[in-house]
């Protein structure tokens, strides 16, 4: 089942007609005009997709970033990382499957991968807690970052979360401390860290593993301090003002690049990453590889200093 977003209605209609024609085509074998019409409609769809996705509003980008068929963390690991070995647990309390961590190879090079996984169907969404990590998840991330530092492995973090999990258990086990210590660990390791915002970069739950040397965002991903809905309900005192909030928040990859918060934007296939998953993931892989190449071989202290300076310069007026 393909999911269409609200603004994709005209596209959905055209694709519906193509499907109908194609099924017709199967019954009346030698109808040339049908296949011509299909081709014309397909061109039209492509053009419409290109037009629509070239000027998505911030709110529409939020919808695309949350699209259920958008490739998630494990899809990237499957396609990009060879010999992946999943590593579990924080050694303190438990295992949190919202956070995926493990060793593997990217283009032959050993790397540590840490990501947030939302899941693709009901069962996997529940298993991964919809990508919302608990303190043990962030503590596992810290453990794996320290391990990467110990063995001199580059760290890749794949971010896709609405935010850290809010709940009684999270507070009891120190969600705030877990996030703070994760940021601290990101700042302490002497190996390259490359972060990719795949879909949603949700607040503290994202920055906990996205304090990095190079921050990459997909073209239609978003990254913000709070969800547009949350922002609207607090500042506009109306949850239905989320579209306005999304506009004001400047949460798109393009806005963040302009503000100097992120380094690279990866173009998505026409119609979004979910329309051509394979090539979207391949593009991300190439970008991560290039980022690691640019960072590798650097002295650990130099790398740490550069990382600190990068963040200290953010939001400051140019000297």
């Amino acid at each position: 089942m393909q999911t269409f977003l609200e603004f994709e209605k005209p596209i959905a209609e055209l694709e519906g007609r193509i499907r109908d024609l194609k099924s017709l085509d199967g019954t009346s074998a030698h109808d040339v005009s049908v296949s011509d019409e299909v081709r014309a409609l397909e061109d039209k769809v492509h053009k419409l997709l290109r037009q629509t996705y070239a000027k998505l509003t911030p709110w529409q980008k939020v919808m695309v970033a949350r699209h259920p068929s958008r490739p998630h963390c494990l899809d990237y690991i499957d396609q990009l990382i060879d010999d992946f070995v999943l590593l579990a647990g924080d050694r303190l309390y438990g295992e949190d499957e919202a956070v995926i961590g493990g060793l593997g190879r990217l283009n032959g090079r050993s790397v540590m991968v840490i990501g947030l996984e939302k899941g693709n169907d009901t069962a996997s969404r529940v298993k991964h807690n919809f990508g919302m990590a608990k303190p043990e998840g962030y503590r596992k991330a810290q453990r794996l970052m320290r391990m990467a530092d110990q063995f001199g492995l580059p760290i890749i973090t794949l971010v896709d979360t609405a935010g850290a999990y809010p709940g009684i258990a999270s507070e009891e086990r120190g969600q705030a401390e877990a996030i703070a210590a994760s940021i601290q660990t990101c700042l302490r390791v002497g190996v390259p860290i490359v972060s990719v915002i795949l879909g949603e970069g949700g607040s503290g739950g994202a920055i906990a593993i996205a304090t990095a040397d190079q921050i990459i965002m997909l073209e239609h991903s978003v990254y913000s301090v709070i969800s547009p809905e949350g922002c609207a309900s607090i500042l506009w005192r109306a949850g239905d003002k989320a579209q306005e909030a999304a506009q004001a928040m400047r949460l798109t990859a393009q806005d963040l690049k302009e503000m100097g918060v992120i380094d690279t934007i990866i173009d998505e296939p026409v119609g979004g990453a979910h329309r051509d998953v394979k090539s979207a993931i391949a593009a991300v892989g190439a970008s991560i590889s290039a980022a690691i190449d640019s960072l590798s071989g650097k002295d650990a202290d130099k790398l740490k200093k550069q990382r600190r300076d990068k963040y200290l310069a953010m939001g400051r007026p140019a000297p």
Partner: protein
Amino acid sequence: MNWLTNFVRPRISAWVKKDVPQNLWVKCPGCEAQIHHRELEENLQVCPHCGHHMRIDAAKRLALMFDEGRYDEVELPDVPQDPLKFRDLKRYSDRLKAAQASSGRKDAMIVARGTIKGTHAIVAAFDFSFMGGSMGTAVGEALVTAAKLAVMQECPLVVVPASGGARMQESILSLMQMPRTTIAVEMVKDKRLPYIVVLTDPTTGGVTASFAMLGDIHIAESGAMIGFAGARVIEETIREKLPEGFQRAEYLREHGMVDIVTTRHELPTVLGRLLDLLMRQRPPAEVVQLSTDKAARKAKPAG
């Protein structure tokens, strides 16, 4: 005398008008007793009947922490105002101007230096009345300044959060203050100088999830609300009532997040003793025992 009364009087009357409209009695949220505002002020905004700690003005907070109430305020760097040109129901720049006009400060953090029970220290305190003590670029920059000053003067850094969390009108730049303030903490830790956090009511969101939970020692004021997610968000997520005392200072201590829960009156003594222990490890007056002591210790089997 005349010049003094002329100088002082307008300020006092302005303060009284602003903070205590009409009646001079304050109802304690803890025990509902009516307390005269002067009695409350003399008691550092702590209810004399039940000990409930009410919020206290940042300047008074600094005065109660430093010896004889004396401290020097540190000039803070200017930062871009309203970098996103953010507008919700009002313009952020207007909100900011209003907060600056009513507080007479640039933003929600004050940095001061002085002595605490004789130990020189830098204190960075939040002003909750300035846009809910929310953290944006100015707060981040103030904390970086405080950390640099502590390093330069080789003295401890004490941070006193009182904050609703992120300054939402600065959007992603407020989120970026989480790593930025963590870097400030790291500067102090690199030099092995003490970094102490005094958690006060309220400490929430991105403030809790960065520098406020990275102290060498965490002291919390009695009854203070300290947490990551807001109570309403949690209730909406789990759809059940929150337990009694949830996210209070005592609850955090019980769960291992806080070292010490103290009253406002005892705070300077507790803080002073810790700073003294950490900064004067071998006071010159101490008589050091020589001879067998060291050898005996060496001979002892290790655990």
